[in-house]
């Protein structure tokens, strides 16, 4: 089959499918027998894939890609904890205005500390598990997690809480 037709037929598949199988599928079409039967088979299969996508409408890309790694609970949980910690600080400030520093830190401060400290083991687990497997993507996720931590800490230091 000629390259242009192979490319055209591959484009009939959903994007997620193409991202995973597109290159090898196109190579198979180019290497294999062309003809109406093969083309009809591809058109029908592409249609089936669009109607009944593999795995609920989305395909994972490379399991070591940023998109795949960032979806793991050990990547998401620390960011969620940082976000909750940030909301704990910003919420009362938005409602009552900048707080005055008091000797007793209060429940919110303790909760903030638990959230920030509690994510450290999860972060360590994530780094230990994923750094050897996909260093580049893992570093990007770690940078995102570090950004979330800094965002949660920024108002504390800014308001000297």
């Amino acid at each position: 089959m000629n390259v242009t037709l192979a490319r055209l037929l591959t484009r009939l598949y959903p994007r997620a499918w193409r991202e995973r199988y597109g290159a090898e599928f196109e190579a198979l079409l180019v290497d294999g027998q062309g003809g109406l039967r093969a083309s009809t088979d591809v058109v029908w299969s592409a249609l089936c894939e669009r109607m009944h996508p593999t795995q609920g409408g989305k395909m994972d890309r490379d399991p070591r890609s940023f998109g795949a790694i960032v979806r793991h609970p050990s990547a998401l949980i620390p960011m969620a904890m940082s976000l909750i910690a940030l909301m704990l600080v910003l919420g009362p400030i938005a409602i009552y205005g900048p707080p005055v520093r008091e000797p007793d830190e209060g429940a919110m401060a303790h909760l903030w500390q638990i959230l920030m400290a509690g994510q450290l083991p999860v972060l360590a687990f994530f780094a230990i598990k994923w750094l050897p497997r996909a260093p580049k993507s893992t570093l990007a996720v770690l940078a995102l997690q570090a950004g979330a931590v800094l965002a949660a800490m920024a108002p504390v230091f800014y308001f000297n809480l």
Partner: protein
Amino acid sequence: MRSTRHVVIDEKDPELGHYSDPPLLVLASLSNGPKHGHAMIEDILRLCGTRLGPGTLYGAIARLERQGWIEPLPAEERRRPYRITTEGLRVLRARLATLQQFIKAGVGRLGAL
């Protein structure tokens, strides 16, 4: 698993019934070693005279991979070989055992005619 039997192409005699369970054919093809798509098509053709269309083959590959019955190996140029997993071998054995029972019973009934 989605049925793809309507797009299986039999080169020997399209009028005769032919075996058309692409996932099982892929598992059987990979049972004697890793293969890329083109090699699988040729192997299945030798195995049972059925030429899988490229779309049918990759429909089966995608679903088998999702189920963890086959796994991809690093790509060689643009071709990606696949190999059967331990779980895939277990499934293949079970399916073939069922088929064997079915064939035995079917042949027995035909013999009684």
